[in-house]
């Protein structure tokens, strides 16, 4: 029973990592950059929803939809203003940009008087509800995350596998020059990707809000989602989820059975071991340039 409950909370926590990792993988697959701003986008999304509910008194669902919409717009704008001008520069520049965007987002939010430095709650309708399954306690907040993660993963997977748009996104990340030659509107697609990533982030932010609260530094949880994405294989969507679950469960069990300090380092130890054994993660394909 104990073990089951631990597994359950591990899975729930793992889905959180997986959900955030989805955002990383989405951006990576479509642009081959690693976005360090994903956590901050999540934070902004949560703040947007919070603003909708607390400042404008909107009902949750409406606020959520508006927040997603706002974040999509924000993502597109972000791409337009800061990422597009250096499109084509080494990917590392863009990684640095995302770090900068993270700083700016945190700074801006912190600067909002009376709100930015505080911690807030998002009054979701299912707050603090639990389901009891015999002795097992199911947390509705966590169930929502599990559900959303599965749905999002499915949708994104289908997009990349079957839609022309999704394939074109991958194409432009693999060889931008050739993508231009094919008439793929690389810039527009990039904007779309960032919009999508911001939407995913907003959803993650709102789902996370009941658990981690809404505050300027909530994005740091993204640092644990990196190992999740890597364990799964960075370019794989299902990998992100599986990686998240692995990390979540290991963390949960390590926290209970191992001495203090292991819970928080466990994900990183797992990721190192993983890279030793399978350098490309669980689902990442082995890639080698053919010469």
């Amino acid at each position, binding site marked *: 029973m104990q073990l089951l409950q631990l597994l359950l909370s591990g899975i729930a926590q793992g889905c959180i990592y997986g959900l955030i990792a989805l955002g990383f993988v989405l951006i990576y697959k479509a642009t081959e950059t690693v976005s360090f701003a994903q956590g901050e986008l999540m934070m902004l999304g949560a703040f947007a929803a919070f603003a909708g509910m607390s400042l404008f008194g909107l009902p949750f669902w409406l606020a959520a939809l508006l927040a997603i919409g706002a974040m999509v717009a924000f993502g597109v704008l972000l791409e337009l203003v800061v990422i597009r001008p250096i499109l084509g520069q080494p990917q590392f520049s863009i990684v640095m940009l995302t770090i900068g965007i993270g700083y700016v987002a945190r700074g801006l939010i912190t600067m909002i008087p009376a709100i930015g430095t505080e911690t807030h709650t998002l009054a979701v309708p299912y707050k603090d509800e639990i389901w009891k399954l015999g002795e097992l306690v199911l947390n509705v907040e966590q169930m929502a995350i599990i559900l959303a993660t599965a749905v999002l993963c499915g949708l994104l997977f289908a997009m990349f596998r079957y839609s*022309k748009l999704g*394939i*074109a996104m*991958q*194409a432009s990340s*693999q*060889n931008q*020059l*050739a*993508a*231009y*030659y*094919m*008439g*793929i*509107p*690389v*810039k*527009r697609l990039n904007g779309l990707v960032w919009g999508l990533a911001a939407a995913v982030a907003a959803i993650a932010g709102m789902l996370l809000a009941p658990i981690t609260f809404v505050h300027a530094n909530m994005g740091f949880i993204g640092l644990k989602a990196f190992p999740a994405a890597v364990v799964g294989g960075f370019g794989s969507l299902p990998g992100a989820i599986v990686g998240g679950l692995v990390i979540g469960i290991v963390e949960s069990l390590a926290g209970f059975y191992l001495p203090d300090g292991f819970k928080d380092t466990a994900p990183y130890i797992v990721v190192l071991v993983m890279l030793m054994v399978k350098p490309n993660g669980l689902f990442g394909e082995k*890639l080698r*340039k*053919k010469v």
Partner: protein
Amino acid sequence: MPPRTREDHKVTDTVLQLLNVESAYGPIKAIRGVSLKVRQGEIATVLGSNGAGKTTILKTISGIIDPRKGSIEFRGQNITAKDPAYIVQQGLSHVPEGREVFPLLSVRDNLLMGAYTRKDRDGVARDIETVFGYFPILKERATQDAGLLSGGQQQMLAISRAIMAAPQLILLDEPSLGLSPKLTKEIFEIVVRINRERGTTILLVEQNANMALNASDYGYVLENGRIVMEDTCERLREKEDIKEFYLGLKDDGVRGERRWKKKKTWR
């Protein structure tokens, strides 16, 4: 059929026109004031030695490089320094130098990306079959990652991809690069066929001048970024310089001289 001349085309209009185009990489000017015309339904070729700027001309046309000066017109529309995606949508496609396939996409997805600007699904499906007909090996490897193909197979894919766009004008940058002699010939046959059957206009850059001059109607000769000669291919083939420098038709005595290179000047 009698040899065609430029005059035959008087009635048909110009598909592509470059006027005084100048492009540079940073401080290095690669082409200096190039003007050329490609007419509807013809195959034009640009000859030139290494580094003459042939690739640069093609890149400038498809918007990969913005020219410093001059203008480019495609089907009566000014496309100077437009976004490459926009230019392709106008009906121009480019087989780039050095293949440039999407290495992690399957061969089929690569072909589909070639048809990105097209809306007619049926036409696309038909054209996939057509190019599979041209290059059966691609059909065999349809699900394999394109990056794992051999060099020549990638070249076939790159050409097929351009055909998939069903364009008005194809820019071909050294299509025979790395192809076997048999396939090289086939490629040119295909090029000519596409030109004749679909009326696709073609601008061809090719090291294999013999092939190029045979397949094309009109030719330009580029040296150091400038066009130094232009004429119908018939006439170009007869020119002594062309024979000597591009077709390799000259006596070994002259060639032999070149072996005694001047010793280095640096130090």
